[in-house]
């Protein structure tokens, strides 16, 4: 007989090993799925995980990894602060959109002016946009005790409507023949978030993601606020006794995650995407939730998890094109990753026991 037994202490080894085991399990079961679809599983796994990094055209895919991974990491870092403290911002997608709209809005308002100050202004505006959008659920929670999960999630749909309205109206390209979508910021030098070194994919958003990782690491390990976050998540009552102000913590965590999501949106719209369009958001805000958990809510873990997710996206598209795998199979594959992570997570708290249960 097999049963689960609660560990006296959560296993640190398992906590670290779980993500790796989840990746391995995903490869095995994903491979079976690909085999069932009539594709060579080894080739499929190699195409997804190996080719973007070390294949013939890796010079193109490696920078793409940064471009795809940076917004995920930036958003997930912000989310992880709240998640650690039990504050659930599910609406990063909305904050990402608002950051992009604020940032692009400032840039487009100043068009065709050129100046060194334009891009920094856009960065500030982007951060502000995301922050404001996150402060709505934060203030409502602090003042009226509303559920931040629901409010932040619902605000995603409001933000999407704003985005549609802006692409069709205020921010629409006057030279776009009536089609929706703003001017392309890639063609507006002062506003363009270009690669810092041509062809490396290293744009300001990547730099910001790196800084966020370091900042979060220092905050969580060295700063009093980081201690407050951790203790609130692990033992809320103890946190109260140790003088943590829960309202202030809610404002900080939601505000910071909104700010970072807004920055991610701003760097995306002014760089890789270039334009405000109706379909500008592609789900980074939601995928970042997976990234945050895949990375164990740890800054370094998130950095790796973000790159891993980016890899499955990029490799997945290559597999579609080269092997004819359907997009749905790739999505199932990505879903497996989270599924196995959560499933294996049980073993951090519990361990397997074989044999009959002894009567205590």
């Amino acid at each position, binding site marked *: 007989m097999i049963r689960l037994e609660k560990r006296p202490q959560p296993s640190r080894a398992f906590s670290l090993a779980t993500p790796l085991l989840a990746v391995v399990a995903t490869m095995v079961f994903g491979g079976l799925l690909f085999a069932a679809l009539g594709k060579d599983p080894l080739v499929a796994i190699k195409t997804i995980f190996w080719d973007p990094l070390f294949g013939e055209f890796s010079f193109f895919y*490696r920078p793409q990894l940064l471009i795809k991974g940076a917004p995920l990491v930036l958003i997930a870092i912000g989310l992880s602060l709240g998640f650690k403290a039990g504050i659930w911002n599910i609406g990063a997608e909305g904050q990402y959109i608002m950051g992009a709209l604020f940032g692009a809005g400032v840039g487009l308002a100043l068009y065709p002016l050129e100046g060194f100050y334009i891009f920094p202004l856009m960065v500030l505006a982007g951060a502000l946009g995301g922050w404001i959008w996150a402060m709505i659920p934060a203030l409502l929670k602090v003042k009226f005790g509303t559920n931040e999960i629901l409010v932040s999630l619902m605000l995603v749909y409001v933000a999407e409507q704003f985005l549609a309205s802006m692409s*069709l109206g205020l921010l629409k390209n006057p030279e776009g023949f009536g089609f929706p979508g703003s001017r392309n910021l890639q063609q507006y030098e002062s506003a363009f978030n270009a690669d810092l070194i041509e062809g490396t994919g290293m744009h300001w958003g990547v730099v910001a993601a790196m800084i966020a990782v370091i900042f979060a690491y220092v905050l969580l390990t060295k700063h009093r606020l980081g201690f407050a976050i951790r203790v609130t998540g692990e033992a809320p009552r103890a946190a109260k006794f140790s003088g943590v102000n829960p309202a202030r913590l809610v404002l900080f965590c939601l505000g910071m995650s909104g700010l970072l999501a807004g920055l991610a949106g701003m760097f995306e719209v002014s760089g890789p995407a270039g334009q405000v369009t109706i379909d500008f958001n592609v789900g980074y805000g939601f995928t970042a939730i997976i990234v945050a958990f895949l990375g164990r809510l740890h800054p370094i873990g998130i950095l790796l998890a973000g790159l891993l997710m980016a890899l499955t996206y990029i490799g997945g598209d290559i597999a579609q*094109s080269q092997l004819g795998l359907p997009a749905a199979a790739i999505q199932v594959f990505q879903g497996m990753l989270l599924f196995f992570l959560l499933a294996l997570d049980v073993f951090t708290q519990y361990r397997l026991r074989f044999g009959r249960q002894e009567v205590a």
Partner: protein
Amino acid sequence: MKLTNLLTSAAIALGLATSAFADGHEKTKVGFVYVGPVGDGGWTYEHNKGRLAVEEEFGDAVETVFVESVAEGPDSERVMTQMALDGADLIFTTSFGYMDPTINVAKKFPNVKFEHATGYKRADNVSTYSARFYEGRAIQGHIAGKMTKSNIIGYIGSYPIPEVIRGINSAFIHARKANPDVQFKIVWAYTWFDPAKEADAAKVLIEQGADVVLQHTDSTAPQAAAQEAGNVVTFGQASDMSQYAPFPRVSSIIDDWAPYYIRRTKAVMDGTWESTDTWEGIGAGMVGIGEISDAVPADVKEEALALKASLADGSYHAFTGPLNKQDGTPFLAEGETADDGTLAGMNFYVEGIEGDIPQ
């Protein structure tokens, strides 16, 4: 990885990618970038049928590849680049939102030919193509005007862009001609493909009394909603959607990209490919009208087919004056027809349609 190494290798490989082409590999490789899943039963489904037709036509002489559900923006740019790197000779990018990405990638691969659907930006190696769906809308409008008993026709719009507004206007003009009491109710779904949203939109329209629902979205969800309601007429969109025939689906507009895709692939093989702007309708076969089912009275069917014939041979234009804009200002004088430029950028309703185009 050293940055300098990376850059030199990038330069070398880019050189390789373009020269791999000059020495002429055996198979012509054709790539397709799709915005939805190939099983959407509408827009992407038909583009994919075009791809399969290319394979069938040329057999072993071509190799086709595709990636489905590609988000517009940087993802599409990456997928196109990847196809070009993998040696594609011709790439069809089949959504309006792929416009700037297509132009960006085309700049990096001057020897690869690109074809962008429904856009307006071209380059030496970028063509654009689209179909005159509004011709099909005219026939739909006529049948809808004749079939409605409540005189309320529901319309599920995707995005308020010229393409969609043109369709609404064309359907409305011909519905009014067939039945002067007709009203249009328009719901904007802000999606090309989202079965849940489309079903909701259809239900809202049906609740508001619409007994004909036209859709400019690609899933069959509105058809299912109409079938459930029982007495609501629909039309297949982009694809025939004949699984809902003979009722509620009484006819359809079918995008037939196969002849165009075959023609353009042939041009690449022969080395005669040139950048062009193609906009073809019923006459050229790019827009097909699905079989008009027996649920439509015989005389209405006959009128619809006559309208189709006159649109096909060019003796009638779907936008023929006298027509006014919604605000009452003149749009076309008696006998005047709209020019392509006006149609391409159409951003106003014709007189008689209620409501505003979302801004």
